[in-house]
Structures are given as structure tokens and as C-alpha cells.
């Protein structure tokens, strides 16, 4: 059952072969057993989850069920959920109980899905290894000496270890795709503006985008049907016709033009990841697709541009955490300024403070033009690269990450090395495009490898279809971490 797809679970529930309470209890049991090792969940509330499951069962019984009613889902702890502690992985919000639901949370709630709890994450989504969480790092279920990736590492690990059939994530520079790749699951970052950011704690507002993390592209499509759509509470949410994200799942691959960016296959890419990606491309060719070389010449600039723009936005997004109205406040201070300084010095971790400092610096008088404005210009060039590439191909493919999951401590003392692990994902956020990661191999060290798919604006359903066709002929997405099965 733990490897069942959402479609299969939905059928079991609809046929009353299993109740939502039974299903939810099964996952809660797995969480109770494995979370002490994996640390994927920050908050679990069995009573609340089972109450939601009972309500879902009643809804199914009444015949008013939606497609996913009764199926459990885990939420990244960046989403506010009414009555749930919402920490964003920070001491600053360690005791903050949200009084309202994020749009994404309420969408899943309205669909009758059951919240299994809140998943661990890098503090304020700033990190690529989950090591910056105030609540301790998440372990990679494939190898607990390895990082699960970040910042949606808790959601990725929860799905990989089958502690949840699906999870929500957010992706600012790769935070869905990179942990999905490192834990062997499927994740989608939609086009900027497709999923409302309302109630999602902001890191870098112009880059943040929520998306699904699940075992397969098909599951992601079903989740997108629930979470996507216009929301008037988010001014950057796009008013577009309602889409069925499963509509292109059956589209054949014959004639598909796959663009391979030269810059994604060069220096820095490990041989093993390169081989894994090559193998996946071979599968696509077998399915009738063809590959063409394309170029994204400004890729190398995406990391410096990102590390100007994202911290700039973060430095002011995080100004509200000042100890005045909610959240952490330093116990001792001598005046207002001291209260601010002590509160923020104690409430934020090192990586968050580093980015606040960078962001404050690049927006400062005398530096704004040289850094922030310049970065904005290059951001447009990066987006243009993609536009030009899509003139020659329907989808861009390449590795999600340069290497498989690294060990704890490998990069945590070297921020630049850590930042470079997002080299293939960041440009997608800067351009606002949709991107996916799909498991495509397992390295000799037993750690998964991810294939990245990048589509043109609003091509989510096409991307999901392309990924699904691959998953029809391969079983990487069904592979579970060792020991998972016996743990049922």
C-alpha cells in the first residue's frame, strides 16, 4: 500500500476497501516509527489528522468526495495552517501557531485531503541540505549519512521514505527539484504565479513558488489540479482558465524535441549523474523523441544574480520578525534597539543572518545600482536565454544537480560550495519557468539521481506528460530506499 499511487489510493477509498482513518493511521504509525531517525516532520498532531480523516470518511460516505478526498498529505512548514504550529524551520517561529490557512493548505483541505503534519525545512527556506533548520537536519532515507537536499528536505524525505503519499514544497532556487532529485522522488516547480503564495512565508517573493512533491508525475498532476489557480489575495497570482494538469499525460513522445543545454553538461557535473541523465535521454529517444543541443549562455551568472536578488528580497521580507507582535523575543534587553538586535541575533540562524546582511548591503545607498539593479538586468538576459532555446525545442532536459546527495557537513562550512549545488535549478526561478525533477538512476553509492525537465511558461501539463511517459517505461520512481518495505 505504501507504494500505491494517488489514483490507486483514491480507488481504494472510493471502493471503501480502506477508510481514510485507516490510511491516515498507517502513515502516522510510519511517522512515529521512522521520524525519530529521519526528522522529516517538525510537527505531527495525530488527533487533528485523525479528525480530518474521520471527516473525509464521512464525506466519502455522503457521496460528496472529490478525487483526492481522504488521502493524507504533508505540508512543508513554510505554509501557515490554521491551528498548527508553523515554524519555517526557525527559532523565530518555534512557538508560532498560525491563525489562518495558506491558500495551498485550504485548497487541499477543501479537497478533503488529510494533513499529516508539517515537514522540516531549511530555516526560512535558505539552504540546500536542510542543515540550517533550527529543528535539526533531515536525514536522507537512502542513506542517513547524506543530506536530503533543501530546502524542502522534510517533504522530500517524507515522500521518499513513504511517510506520506504526497507533500507540498516550495522552490525559490531549486528547493523542490533538488531535494526531489536527492531523495529519488518527483517534484514540480510551476510557472511563477500559477500557485498562490498567500500564507506561504516569504523568502524571495519574486522567485518563491509552491509545488507538489510525490512519487510520480501522475500524482503531481493530480495535486496540481488542487493547488493551482488564481487567488485574488496574491497580486502576483495569474488569472488564467482552470486547467486539468492530467490532460497531457497520455501524449506520445514521437517528434518531441528535447533541448540539451551545453552549459548543463560541462565542468562540475559528476560522471555518474551524467551517465544517469544520458540513460534517461536514451529512453526518450526510444520513445521517439529527438535531442538537440541548445545554449543557455548566461547560466554561469545565475548564481551570483540569485545571491543578490534573493537576499535583497529576503532582507526586507524577514524584517517583520522583530519580536514586537509575535514570534521569538529575546528575554533580556535594555531598550528598543537592543530588543531588535538581541531578538534577531538569537532568533535567526547563521545562514539567514548571512543572507539578511548580503541583502541589506546590496540594497544600500551607493551599492544598489552596482548590485541590485545590475542583477535585475542580468535576470532578464537569463530569461531571454530560455526564450531563444525554446525556439529550437519543446522541453529542456539535463541534470537536476551536479552530484548525488552529499554527506552532512561536506558543504555546510563553505557557503559558496553549497550555493553551487543549485547551479542547474536557479536559472529556472530567475526566468519564472516551470521545472521538474524525475528520478532517473541510482548511483553506485546507493543515492538517487534526478533528471530535470524545464518547460516554457505554463507548460506544466506538457511537462507532467513528458515525465509520465518516461515513468511508464521505467521504474525509478517506484524504487524505495532500502529497508522501507520491511518497515510497513
Amino acid at each position, binding site marked *: 500500500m505504501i507504494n500505491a499511487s494517488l489514483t490507486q489510493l483514491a480507488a481504494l477509498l472510493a471502493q471503501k476497501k480502506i477508510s481514510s482513518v485507516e490510511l491516515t493511521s498507517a502513515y502516522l504509525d510510519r511517522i512515529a516509527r521512522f521520524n525519530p531517525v529521519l526528522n522529516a516532520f517538525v510537527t505531527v498532531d495525530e488527533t487533528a489528522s485523525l479528525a480530518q480523516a474521520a471527516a473525509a470518511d464521512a464525506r466519502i460516505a455522503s457521496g460528496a468526495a472529490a478525487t483526492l478526498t481522504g488521502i493524507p498529505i504533508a505540508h512543508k512548514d513554510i505554509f501557515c495552517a490554521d491551528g498548527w504550529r508553523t515554524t*519555517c524551520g526557525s527559532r523565530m517561529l518555534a512557538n508560532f501557531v*498560525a491563525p489562518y490557512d495558506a491558500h495551498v493548505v485550504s485548497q487541499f483541505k477543501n479537497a478533503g485531503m488529510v494533513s499529516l503534519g508539517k515537514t522540516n525545512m531549511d530555516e526560512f527556506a535558505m539552504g540546500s541540505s536542510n542543515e540550517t533548520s533550527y529543528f535539526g537536519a533531515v536525514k536522507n532515507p537512502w542513506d542517513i549519512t547524506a543530506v536530503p537536499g533543501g530546502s524542502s528536505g522534510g517533504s522530500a524525505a517524507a515522500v521518499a521514505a513513504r511517510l506520506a503519499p504526497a507533500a507540498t514544497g516550495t522552490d525559490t532556487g531549486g528547493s523542490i527539484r533538488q531535494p526531489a532529485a536527492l531523495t529519488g522522488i518527483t517534484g514540480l516547480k510551476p510557472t511563477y504565479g500559477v500557485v498562490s503564495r498567500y500564507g506561504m512565508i516569504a523568502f524571495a517573493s519574486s522567485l518563491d513558488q509552491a509545488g507538489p512533491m510525490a512519487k510520480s508525475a501522475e500524482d503531481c498532476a493530480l495535486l496540481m489540479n488542487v493547488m493551482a489557480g488564481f487567488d485574488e489575495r496574491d497580486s*502576483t497570482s495569474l488569472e488564467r482558465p482552470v486547467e486539468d494538469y492530467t490532460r497531457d499525460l497520455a501524449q506520445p513522445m514521437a517528434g518531441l524535441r528535447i533541448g540539451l543545454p551545453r552549459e548543463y553538461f560541462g565542468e562540475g557535473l559528476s560522471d555518474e549523474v551524467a551517465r544517469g541523465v544520458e540513460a534517461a535521454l536514451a529512453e526518450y529517444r526510444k520513445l521517439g523523441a529527438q535531442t538537440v543541443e541548445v545554449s543557455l549562455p548566461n547560466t554561469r551568472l545565475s548564481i551570483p544574480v540569485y545571491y543578490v536578488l534573493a537576499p535583497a528580497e529576503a532582507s*526586507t521580507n524577514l*524584517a*517583520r*520578525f522583530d519580536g*514586537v*507582535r509575535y514570534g521569538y523575543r529575546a528575554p533580556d534587553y535594555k531598550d528598543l534597539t537592543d530588543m531588535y538586535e538581541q531578538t534577531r541575533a538569537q532568533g535567526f540562524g547563521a545562514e539567514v543572518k548571512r543572507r539578511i546582511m548580503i541583502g541589506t548591503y546590496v540594497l544600500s545607498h551607493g551599492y544598489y545600482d552596482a548590485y541590485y539593479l545590475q542583477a535585475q538586468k542580468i535576470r532578464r538576459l537569463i530569461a531571454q536565454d530560455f526564450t531563444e532555446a525554446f525556439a529550437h525545442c519543446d522541453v529542456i532536459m539535463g541534470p537536476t544537480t551536479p552530484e548525488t546527495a552529499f554527506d552532512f557537513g561536506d558543504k555546510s562550512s563553505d557557503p559558496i560550495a553549497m550555493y553551487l549545488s543549485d547551479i542547474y535549478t536557479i536559472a529556472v526561478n530567475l526566468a519564472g519557468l516551470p521545472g521538474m525533477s524525475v528520478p532517473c538512476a541510482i548511483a553506485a553509492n546507493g543515492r538517487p539521481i534526478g533528471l530535470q525537465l524545464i518547460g516554457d511558461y505554463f507548460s506544466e501539463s506538457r511537462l507532467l506528460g513528458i515525465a509520465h511517459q518516461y515513468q511508464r517505461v521505467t521504474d525509478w520512481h517506484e524504487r524505495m530506499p532500502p529497508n522501507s518495505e520491511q518497515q510497513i
Partner: protein
Amino acid sequence: MHWEIVVGLEVHTQLSTRSKIFSGSSTVFGAAPNTQASAVDIALPGVLPVLNRSAVERAVQLGLAIGGNISRRSVFARKNYFYPDLPKGYQISQMDHPVVEGGSLTIQVGPDEKTVRITRAHLEEDAGKSMHGDFHGMTGIDLNRAGTPLLEIVSEPDLRGAAEAVAYAKTLHGLVVWLGICDGNMQEGSFRCDANVSVRPLGSGVLGTRCEIKNLNSFRFLERAIEYEARRQIEINEEGGTIRQETRLYDPDRDETRTMRSKEDAYDYRYFHDPDLSPLVISEDWIARTRAAMPELPGAMRERLVAQYAISAYDAAALTASRATAAYFEQLVAASSGEAKLSANWMMGDLFAALNRYELDMAHCPVSAAQLGRLIVRIVDGTLSGKLAKEVFEALWQAAGEVDAIIEARGLKQVSDSGAIAAIVDQILAANPAQVADYRAGKEKMLGYLVGQAMKAMKGRANPQQLNEILLQKLN
């Protein structure tokens, strides 16, 4: 040396929208602390701003009224600083691309008109309030005001001295209230001024170093603060000192300005485009619809009143002091069967005096235009003398009923029967032979005495013109 005082004003007008600029909370003044502060207003994690279209429309109205350029695309920016009553740690404002650019306002300076250039007007949100009252040694924060829409209107340094600054502020105040985009309530902070003041030798083309005086919330404080500040700067200059650019506060109790922060301590607000809000795009169509919904502007209305009713420019100016006043005037002319001059005189005389006496504004005037119009009709048709009309007006003010009923009940109807008047005149002449003789001997002053006696005998109701005529006839 003669010094010229140069002033530019930044006026914060609170826009009279029902809800806040980026949230749905009410903007009504005076609610219990923090009862009008939503998740967005208190900046909970995850909340986002959504722009209030009504606030934009009000800004566009001001822009059109001052002949400014409405930016087809303007941008909201974050102004970053920490303060306990600033929930997000930044204020959403506009910096490089304000909603209104350019424009001007014509003010009256003594007998002359002067055109003051307006640099820009931009939309922004207000902060909350810090309350330093009795909170056991702590500061209270009220976020009801946080997110209230403001339009900051910035003038060029075109004003020369306190009187011009006050005239400009009053004209602008009149305009925003006229447009209905601001309630103009200065006690509640709906119209607050920052004054940039500098001085320079008369004839100099170079601006002196300026000081900004913050948060002046009455015309009197504005005047006093500028006067004090100009005096202070002139004294420093005359003693050979140097003016330091700084932000100052006016203390009305001590009637002086004091340093708040110097230029060196000025914040670096780190303005940048707010990524939560798309650029504000204002279409031609939206501008046209907003223009169509605007009231006739005071300048245009003054010209029309002069042309349409043949009243003086002076009267037209007084009668367009507010939209309520102008509307009253036009209703009054209609109700008095077109007696424009009498209508103007009555409004600017007895009515304004009474409103002044009772400290009422036009909207709360107890005498309706219909009733005052009726009164004017009764003057014109000879029923009431001017003197009796004043008595009726007093009665109307005291809500004693309708004009004709008051005349009837109090027996105020003017006597225009020449027989009746002649009979009284005969009695008076007979009773005052000495005065009659004096008059006939050349003491013309005696005429007034005799008129007075006759009027008294008729309890003031005699048609004064007829009485005069009959008396003269009999005396000569």
C-alpha cells in the same frame, strides 16, 4: 540684509476609502485599539498586500484636478526601517514612479493669484500609532491606522513665507475635501504637513540649506513653525553661522522647532520595487471613467457662477469655499426664483455669520436653501422688509417653522397700505410739533427721528420706503 523665505510642502492626505490600501480592514477613526487590524495589517507571516482600487481612483482624481500627469504605469516600493508601529519593517510607498507627476495649484495671495507647482503625488500606507500612556512602563501599539491609504502631495519650493504656505495648504485642503477624496479632518490627522524651509538673501537664485519640519497638523502650527524656523535660520546666517540640513519637530507648547535628526543620522531606507505588487497600470479608460465621476472643480465652477448668475468674482470665490456651500447657493437661487444677487448677499451675510457664531459647517446648516429661498421671495414681493426678514431668519435658525407661518404667527407682515401709514404719520406729526417745526426750519436730521417714531408706532412693520415717501409728502 533682506531675506527671502522659501518653503515647499509635503502634505499627507488620508484618502477617504472605506477599507485600507492593502487590506480589507475598515479605516473608520476612533475604534478600540487593534480592532481594525487584520492579518495583513499586523504583518503575520505569509500575508500579502492587495491594492485597493478606490485609493488609486482618489489619487487619479487629485492628479486630474491639479492638471498633473497620471502615470500610466507606476511602481510600489518598500521603504525599509524598523519601528514598533511599522508591522512589516517596511512601508509600502512609491519612489521612482509615483502615480501623479507634475501639476499645479493656484492660490490667492492678498489681491494676487499665484501658481504653485506640484512635483508629484504618490500613494503609500500609513503606520500604526505608538501610545506612551499608562502601560506599566511599556509602550502600547495600536495598529488600527496601519495600512490607511495616504496620498503624499509634494510641492516645489515655490512658496515665499508662512502666509503663502498656509494659503497653499488651505487651498489644497479645500480641493481634496471638494473632491471628496479626503475628509480633511486635521485633528484626526487626515491632513498633515511637512514643511521644507530655507532662507536666502533676497534676489539670490540659489536655494539655501533646508530644514524639514515634520508633522504639522494645523494651519496655525504650520504658520508658527515656518515663522519660527525662518527666524532661526536668519539669525544663524546673520551671526555668520551655517545652517545644518536636518529634520526638526515643532513644539506648539514652546512655539519652537527642535532637531529630530541630522542629515548624517538620516536613515538609508533601501527603497526597492515591492515584489509582492505588480506595477500599477492605469488605463485610459479607467482615467476617463474616473474623470467622469468627478465633481465640477472649484475654479471652473467660480467662472460659471460669475457668468451664469452675474455675481462678482469675489462672491463666486466665497460661495465655492466648499462643495456644500456652492450647492446651497445654487439651490437657493432656484428656490428664490432666480434672485442670485440677494441669494449671494444673504449667504455671505446673515447665513455665514450665523454659521460662524455657532461654529457650524455648511453641511450642518439648520436653515434649508428652500426656506431661505422662500424668505428672499417674501422680501422681493414686499411682504417682508429687510429688518423683518432678519427676524424671520433668526426664527428659521431656531427651527421655529416655515417662513410664511412665522410671518403669520408673529404678525411680521409688512404694512404697505398707504392709507394706514398716512394715518399713523398724521398722528406722529400732530404729536411732535416742535420737531416738525425744526425740520421745516432746515434741520433735516429730524426726518430720521420722525421715521423712527412712526415705525415704532407701527411695531416696525411699515414698508420703510412708503413711510419715507408719505412723511416727506406731508412735511413739504
